[in-house]
């Protein structure tokens, strides 16, 4: 899976799993400030990422994520090294 595929899958998960509005999601969107994803939403996202990308994301790494783009980068680094 290349990065652009990760990117579109990420958007799909944010819409499907967190109920976010697709129009508001860009790679620069900040989870908390722009998308109003709270701490419970972050956990939901982590589970969705792990299930859909087959990766493991420890809480310490998840805590560093601020934007959608950073989450894409993290998944990309785990899948594609």
């Amino acid at each position, binding site marked *: 899976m290349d990065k652009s595929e990760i990117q579109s899958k990420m958007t799909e998960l944010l819409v499907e799993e967190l109920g976010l509005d697709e129009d508001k999601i860009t790679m620069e969107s900040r989870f908390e400030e722009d998308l109003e994803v709270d701490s*419970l939403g972050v956990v939901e996202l982590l589970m969705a990422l792990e299930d859909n990308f087959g990766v493991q994301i420890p809480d310490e790494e998840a805590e560093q994520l601020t934007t959608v783009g950073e989450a894409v980068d993290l998944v990309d680094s785990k899948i594609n090294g």
Partner: protein
Amino acid sequence: MEERRVVATGLGTISALGADVDTFWSNILAGTSGVSRIEKVDVSDIPARIAAEIKDFDVEQYMPKRQARRMDTSSQYFWVATQQALDDAGISYEEDDPEALRAGVLAGTGIGGVETFEAQFDILRERGPGRMAPTGIAMIISNMAGGLASIDFNLYGPNSTVVTACAASANAIGDAAEVIKRGAADVMVAGGGEASITRFAVGGFAQARALSTRNDDPAGASRPFDATRDGFVMGEGAAVMILEEYEHAKARGARIYGELIGYGMSADGYHITLPRPGGSGAARAMSAALDDAGLAPQDLDYINAHGTSTPANDATETAAIKTTFGDAAGDLAISSTKSMTGHLLGAAGAIEGLASLLAIRDGVVPPTINYETPDPECDLDYVPNEARQMPVRTVMSNSFGFGGHNVSLVFGSVDD
């Protein structure tokens, strides 16, 4: 200080009989059954396969998906009824409204978020704790309908939840009135929500042998006080009334449906599911409510009975009414709207409270439908099959819950 009086100024409801008060009430007066085959879950291996189920509930009609997915269906129903009731009362609060500090919530539910509980328990067993929803606990806990109402409608006053099974929302209404009477709030959202047409709940009640198995005749299955009754029929939904201090309501020119004039409670102290034979526990709750209202037995016009359609309840409740009202029992109009709504469990007291207030407003008593065969143990006037036009100034609404909780509310007309 003069005693503060408590009146109802807004109503809201969603059930199998309709998603608004007008539809609900016209179906009640027409004697329409809300009972049908259960479609939302597989009940093919459960002996009871009928319920007053809400079909085609589309929560996104009321709120965005993002909001709805964090709410158990029971809380969604309560939310819908709350919004209707606040609108009906003409009440809304901005986030920084000082009046919102004087407005609270008292909710009742029998089993809270049981649908979410089942779904999350399946995930726990199949995929382990690491895949359970982070919102799961918050969706399951029974107080969340009330919590969400405070969050979404800016109600910052007293907020509590009662879980006395099928008496829960009657307790909630009574307790809400007491909060207003002692001056802790001026406005209370009071009612209950229940969404327990699930495999766990239907299966569990069926195992308790509490449910009707008249599967081939859904509309005829809930038949309170009829000799051939064979158990209750589950219902679901929510009902909410806005209770308000009388002078507060008058000052803003609110429409007043009626006044909560009596609240009585007792415990059977007898059995986990069965009523105490003879109904002395229920009779004490009714007497306490009459005393609280300052009414003599002959002053009451109508009883909206608990009337579940179980063999035990209806005979026991009849005996309790006779104990409480003596010679006046024969003159009472008594009916069970559960014959149409099914049994909304923790929301039953509230939806029956609405029916009681609407009976006062319109001068009409709802029927007990499916009443065909008299039972020697149930020999009072149950307003069989047809609504009855008559002046209604005072109504008692009975609600009894597993555990032996007995609650009676008395509503009265307000002349102005």
